[in-house]
């Protein structure tokens, strides 16, 4: 079944959303780089789940939300999105700042979410090391720091293999501005989040790349410790983008954890 693009209105903000697949609802929240569309891992997961991958307000082709100040605003917004899109109680996958958003959503309303997958989420202050200051580097520099080895990324050419068009540069700039708006200070973390995570008893899978140079892999251990019902899987030879660096393995991890594989 081919995915489709829809615009869903939430609180007066239009949310550009990729929708596809069949089965129980699965909400996927993207990272600071923006919504990469219907990538390989999504297509695989959509064989078992109805996937909704919205573009955050202020990003990509979604409407503006200059009034937002932090990831907690985005988390409240996406809880509203769940209602607006009529998703019931979906599984939730979030990557990087999308993972942070997912974690905040779970602390605010654990009953609104079924199972939770956090992929290299920011949100916690690392006990060791620092979160890379992504705004301090140019986008090309950042890309080289984000993945472990471009040669092993199956979709490299589709995603990054050509020079961006002016329209794509405009969207990338917009994404970066909105990411800055949401995460500038305290940089990429919420000092209060650790106090609320123990509320989240939802079964949780945490996925990290061993060679993540953006968010220290030790943060995965912090999340695992704070969440009462969480497992951590660390992928070898993988950087900050497990869903695109190792799409097959990542999709399999998600399917196994969500149980969709068994429902066939």
């Amino acid at each position, binding site marked *: 079944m081919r995915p489709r693009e829809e615009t869903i209105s939430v609180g007066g903000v239009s949310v550009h959303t990729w929708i596809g697949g069949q089965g129980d609802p699965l909400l996927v929240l993207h990272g600071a780089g923006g919504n990469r569309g219907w990538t390989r891992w999504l297509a695989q997961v959509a064989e078992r789940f109805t996937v909704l991958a919205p573009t955050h307000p202020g990003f990509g082709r979604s409407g503006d939300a200059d009034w937002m100040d932090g990831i907690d605003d985005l988390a409240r917004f996406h809880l509203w999105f769940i209602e607006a899109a009529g998703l019931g109680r979906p599984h939730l996958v979030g990557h990087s700042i999308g993972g942070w958003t997912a974690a905040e959503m779970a602390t605010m309303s654990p009953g609104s979410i079924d199972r939770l997958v956090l992929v290299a989420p920011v949100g916690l202050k690392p006990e060791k090391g620092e979160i890379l200051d992504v*705004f301090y580097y140019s986008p090309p520099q950042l890309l080289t720091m984000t993945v472990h080895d471009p040669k092993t990324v199956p979709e490299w050419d589709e995603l990054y293999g050509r020079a961006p068009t002016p329209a794509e540069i405009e969207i990338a*700039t917009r994404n*970066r*501005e909105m990411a*800055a708006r949401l995460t*500038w*200070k305290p940089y990429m973390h919420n000092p209060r989040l650790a106090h609320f995570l123990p509320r989240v008893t939802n079964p949780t899978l945490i996925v990290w790349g061993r060679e993540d140079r953006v968010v220290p892999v030790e943060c995965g251990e912090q999340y695992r410790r704070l969440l009462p019902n969480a497992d951590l899987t660390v992928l070898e030879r993988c950087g900050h983008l497990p869903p695109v660096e190792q799409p097959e393995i990542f999709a399999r991890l998600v399917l196994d954890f969500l149980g969709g594989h068994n429902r066939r």
Partner: protein
Amino acid sequence: MKLYYFSEMPHHEFPDEEGDKYPSLRLEFPNRFFDREKAAANYQRYLTEYEFADQAGFDGLMINEHHSTPSCVNVGVNMTAAVLGRTTRRAKILLLGNILPIEENPVRMAEQLAMADLISGGRVLSGFVRGVGVETWWSNTNPVHNRERFEECHDLILKCWTEPGPFRWEGRHYHFRHVNPWCLPLQKPHPPIWTPGTASPETAVWAGRRGYTYVPFLVPFEIARELFDYYRQGAAEVGRTVTADNLGFLICAVTAETKAKALEAGRHFVWRMGPTLRAPTEYFAPVGMRSRAGAQFALRARPRSLATLSYQELLDGQFIVAGTPDEVIDRFSRIQRELGVGHLLLEAQESRMDHPTTMRSIELMGAKVIPGVAAL
């Protein structure tokens, strides 16, 4: 045309090859190269030069503020204004300026500026700036909020100066439940306000609407004219007439008895244009700090960055003026004719330009150049 003396108070007290090892002298060059003894002596020297500029007849003393850079170790413009307010007698004290978006407490700023105005006998010209990206990093202020904070900080300072307290301020970025500053400026209703410009049409329009003195910094003449047009557009919106007194321009300038000596001294300005501006784009223009219009204008305003221009190109482009007093008068007159400005701000000391050379230049400016351009 009025002349203003300005030094960035540089701290060029380290081997250049050490600075070259880092992506920029700003933010990244480690402060273990800060020489405390030399800095202590330099502050005395720079303040002496300002005091001499006051005595020599400059109309104003311009001071500015930067952070995390050896190019400018004047890290507190209000502090310097207070010192000069006490040790000088005549010249205006032009703060250009306070970096509003990075300010956490506009009420304190309103108080400090008022105190400097009182100490100086009402000589403060209060410049408000948006700052460069480096200061945004230094203060960890969200660059996305830069313009909003600039405008709101300005509005609150103005209210502190012009409306009786106590009052409450609940804005977008600033929140004060009890504003009642017991320190108000001597000048009524408040010190004149100045704004610099390098690339943002929005700032020019904003200043034009309010009648603030607007000063492009180190841009080609055609860009300055374009920015002045934006200023006039803002002025026209509110029916305000623009005069030379509303417009200024900033260049680097030094004079000496001979052209050769002046040209030798003028070379020190190249450091300010080159090594101190060398940095990745993100340092000076972090994401969201500039509007799309501002970013596009900046590209046109600087088709080549100042850092890539040779000394001769900087002289030819009028970014640096170096010559005998007669030659300098000639150049300044040309600037006045070309741009119609009433204020010419002279960055008149830089890098390792020594004290005797600086003092002689100030002396010659006072004796010959200032009288030579006063009638323009």
